[in-house]
């Protein structure tokens, strides 16, 4: 049954293992303990930020594969993405891993869009081991979208800090004892005319709400069915708006909704509204959420990763910020 982006996976592809790497600053994160590898150096001891970025994704992939005793030659597909121009870090990572590669781009929602793609390939019997995930590196992304890292500009409280992290999940056919991908919803691009690139949370919140509503309606489930509904990187401002929108739609998510970006740095005011970036949602989803599901804390989880599809060119030309959100439902059973 596939209709208007509503997906149900009959064979329940499973996430056999995950690998998460993070930069040195991410030690401040309350999820720090859950990360598989934390670098001492933000460039992973390489010369440029972009090389460090590629290395981080590569290491995450290798860690994820090693957990199921596999090597890159056992993997069928590499479905990864990042935010740098033309996704070069992902491309270089794919070049060194030599796994058949499909570049994925949904900005910060790449973690879920790649997971959905991995599940589709597995569902249709085309893949037995697909790597899905995304990464971001603070310096490389800030320079891409905003100002040079050392440039002094006063950021408002709504601004978010791009996380240095990468998260990779290995999607395999049904496997007992690990989280399974049961449902998914592909988001629509929602653009409510916001133009402030330093308030991305507010731009993305309506997209997250649209996808949540469509997911609940399309799969005939209720918001209270989920142990956890986790949005990607709305940040403090965006998440507050998201909850307000939910109240207006008469959805009660006060007890089970959380936001990865808001919590990523432990609500440290130094990081303003929280974390953002493709690495933020994938790191939290594939470490904390995955581990908690393995422990049995959560059984049914809805992950809604949000992404703002802007470029420095588009907002300098005065365009609005179009946003997207993809949802994936995981169950432990």
């Amino acid at each position: 049954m596939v209709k208007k982006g509503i997906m149900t996976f009959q064979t329940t592809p499973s996430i056999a293992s995950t690998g998460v790497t993070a930069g040195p600053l991410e030690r401040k994160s309350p999820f720090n303990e859950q990360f598989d590898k934390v670098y001492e150096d933000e460039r992973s001891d390489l010369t440029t930020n972009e090389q460090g970025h590629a290395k981080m994704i590569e290491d995450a992939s290798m860690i994820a594969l090693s957990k199921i005793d596999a090597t890159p030659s056992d993997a069928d597909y590499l479905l990864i993405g990042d935010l740098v121009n033309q996704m070069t870090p992902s491309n270089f990572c794919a070049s060194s891993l030599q796994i058949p590669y499909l570049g994925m781009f949904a900005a910060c929602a790449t973690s879920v869009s790649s997971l959905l793609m991995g599940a589709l390939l597995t569902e249709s019997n085309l893949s037995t081991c697909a790597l899905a995930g995304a990464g971001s590196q603070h310096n490389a992304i800030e320079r891409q979208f905003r100002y040079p890292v050392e440039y002094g500009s006063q950021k408002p409280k709504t601004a978010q800090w791009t996380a240095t992290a990468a998260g990779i999940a290995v999607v395999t056919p049904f496997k007992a004892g690990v989280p399974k991908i049961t449902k998914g919803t592909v988001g629509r691009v929602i653009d409510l005319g916001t133009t402030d690139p330093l308030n991305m949370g507010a731009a993305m919140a309506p997209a997250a709400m649209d996808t949540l509503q469509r997911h609940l309606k399309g799969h005939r489930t209720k918001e209270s069915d989920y142990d956890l509904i986790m949005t990607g990187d709305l940040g403090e401002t965006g998440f507050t708006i998201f909850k307000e929108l939910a109240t207006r739609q008469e959805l009660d998510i006060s007890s089970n909704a959380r936001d990865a970006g808001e919590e990523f740095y432990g609500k440290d005011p130094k990081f303003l509204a929280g974390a953002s970036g493709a690495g933020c949602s994938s790191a939290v989803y594939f470490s904390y959420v995955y581990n908690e599901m393995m422990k049995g804390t959560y059984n049914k989880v809805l992950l809604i990763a949000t992404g703002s599809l802007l470029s420095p060119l588009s907002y300098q030309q005065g365009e609005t910020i179009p946003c997207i959100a993809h949802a994936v439902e995981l169950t432990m059973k």
Partner: protein
Amino acid sequence: MSIFITAFIVGGLISVVGQLLFDVAKLTPAHTLCILVVTGSILDGIGWYEPLIDFAGAGATIPITSFGNSLTHGAMAEAEKHGFVGVLTGMFEVTSSGISAAILFGFIAAVIFKAKGKN
């Protein structure tokens, strides 16, 4: 020694104007700085900026407005001597120590430093 007090106050007030352009007029830093530079240039044209420098010293020479002022001042000094041709030649003669210093130190910094994502 009152020059130190006036420098502090005038420098602070020019910064406050910048902050108002940031927060109230919602301008980007680049737009704000351009407006201030043009303002400095115009103030020099009507002859108000030099008295301000006399009054506040570094309070008027350190803000970016002085950049517009020094360029305009150079151009006008040449224009006073040579008329219309002076406006043009003046433009090529005047430089700001700010630009040369920024170029030189920017290059040195690029040799020495690396960008860090620390918070």
